[in-house]
């Protein structure tokens, strides 16, 4: 999820290949936006315009869809995104303590990105892995049975990985 290579060509290329994969009908809009979001890390306005052009749909409607779903985001995010499940099962299984630990470790409130742009912390609804709660998802990987003690080494794996 590197945001610095968001050139116009890059955006156009990404949208074009997403449309080729999922089709040019109106019903393809969510799969297309999901793929663009995955490739670019978020949905910049030029990408929304480009999607609207390909699918012959007003940009306002593209935006209304993009702003409705949690997996789509119109704001840039940090290099890594840590999502923590805030639903009841994880909450009673130790999520309360984990929540404080994430805030203390990263120094940011949910919904924010660290000043160095490395981490974005967001709260999410149930990830469906409650059996091993509390659960966090970092980028595409899920981690279960997490405790405050296991959190720091886990985060370090991402920041020291040299990515």
């Amino acid at each position: 999820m590197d945001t610095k290579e968001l050139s116009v060509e890059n955006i156009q290329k990404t949208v074009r290949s997403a449309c080729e994969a999922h089709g040019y009908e109106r019903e393809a809009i969510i799969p297309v936006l999901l793929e663009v979001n995955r490739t670019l890390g978020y949905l910049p306005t030029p990408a929304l315009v480009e999607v609207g052009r390909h699918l012959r749909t007003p940009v306002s409607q593209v935006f209304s869809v993009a702003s409705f779903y949690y997996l789509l985001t119109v704001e840039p995010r940090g290099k890594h995104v840590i999502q923590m499940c805030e639903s009841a099962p994880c909450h009673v299984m130790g999520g309360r303590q984990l929540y404080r630990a994430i805030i203390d470790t990263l120094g940011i409130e949910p919904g924010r990105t660290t000043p160095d742009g490395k981490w974005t912390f967001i709260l999410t609804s149930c990830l469906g892995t409650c059996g091993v709660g509390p659960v966090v998802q970092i980028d595409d990987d899920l981690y279960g049975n997490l405790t405050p003690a296991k959190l720091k080494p886990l985060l370090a794996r991402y920041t020291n990985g040299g990515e």
Partner: protein
Amino acid sequence: MSIIRSLVLVSADPYSLQRGSMEVFETIRQELHRRELADEVEVRLARDLGRHDIAPMVIVYPEAVVYGPVMPEDVPFLIEEHLYKGRIAPGLQVPVREISGRIAWVTARKGTLPAQQPILLSRAGKIDPENIEDYLIHDGYLALGKALTGKTPDEVIDEIKKSGLQGRGGAGFPTGLKWGFVRRAEGDKKYVICNADESEPGTFKDRVLLEGDPHAIIEAMTIAGYAVGADEGYIYIRGEYRLAQERFGIALDQARAYGFLGKDIFGSGFKFDIHMHSGAGAYICGEETALIESIEGKRGEPRPRPPYPTTNGLWGAPTLVNNVETLANVPHILRNGWQWYHRFGTPNSAGTKLYTILGNVNTTGVIEVPMGITLREVISIYAGGMKDGARFKLAQTGGSSGSIVPSSLQDTPMDFESFRKAGVSLGSGALLICDENTCVIDLARVLLNFFRKESCGKCAPCRVGTQRAYFILTRISEGIGRFEDLATLETLYKGLYQLSNCGLGNTAGVPLQGILTHYRAEVEAHIRNKVCPTGICSMSGALVAAEPVFH
């Protein structure tokens, strides 16, 4: 069969015998006689309970408390504390892995308890889900073949109707009836949708099926297509389930290659294919009309009903929407016949049910049991008892919008009928089990936080009601709640139920209502005494947030 209150197991492996377990066994029997408990408590020897380091061992059920090493002189104290006074005998309990206990219990009671009867999970967790051959050798696609070559669509629907299968998504609507509606609906083009947008917190049974046995769902959807007269199916899998999507995609390709999807399936002339559609993160899309909107590429906002999807669904065509678990029952019913299906469950709720167990218990996960099992049985048998020996406080059945089940309702059979009578709902099958360290205000706050975020915002009662309730609960948890707040909360959950447009808003207040009914004293302690009895709420007195802005 006599009914016993407790079962005591004494280990009798060679090692225990050497260390005097027979004496322990005899002393327990004598002690029970002396206290006139012999009729209510059964004592048995167990060949091997697995732990030799603490032999001889005694396990008392249904609490599954393990004691050891137990000497004959410890017995009177143990019996007095645990079986007479009903509490854990201090000093004798071993903080062991509850594993040995779970196995011993199941072994000892085999045949007398509603044992786990896997039908839906007969393959998931055993076969390789990415290999169609594994499915084929376990009777895969046999039901489809039988239906297409030997039954008319009406006969298929009739079979489902007679089986008494009820929708497992939460509402419990008779499946056969719904299939009949779609079959009779006017239109040349019809659709079958499998609702796999399982976003109810704590529910992941559908994910287990999709990840573990994807071909079963393909087979069921194809049968449904044949029965209602559809040639296209959609499966809407929630976006977070990446592995389920990947495995379902592999299964689709394999099914097409073998001819189980496509044209002229089983040489019957029937054609059917399935599209996989990924959700994009929205709880509301589990509501069937919102799901349809989302497939059409719009915001997932529910449509007003009626008209129902059975007549006006996807692109206005008659559409059958069924949950994953509901569909998973279909091939089994068609293969074995509806009479066979009635062997499981209770007369009014046939079949088995998948439950996800989570919270403060020793074994979390998914189980399949006949309808009608009780919560107490689920906790002590399948969940391995409460974690760290804590006491059960409450359970929430059916995810965030589910009912609160206090300990007084622990012995209510869990089926659609009995739960309806007790005023609680079975919902999606999630069982969130909370111990005594759970604060009801804190729990309600977390639940309302979920709804206020997931409300799609289309209708005001839900959009504003969930925000207001969350704000008031936060205020109470900070120790600045007022008594008027309770009346306001009551108005809010009634309003949510009566005025909201769809199921999300209707049920958002259900847990809140349960908490205010069953745990009034605890709630009032927060307000009157400014004390959180479990010590979880911060009670800082700080005004955390200004009144939320409504838009």
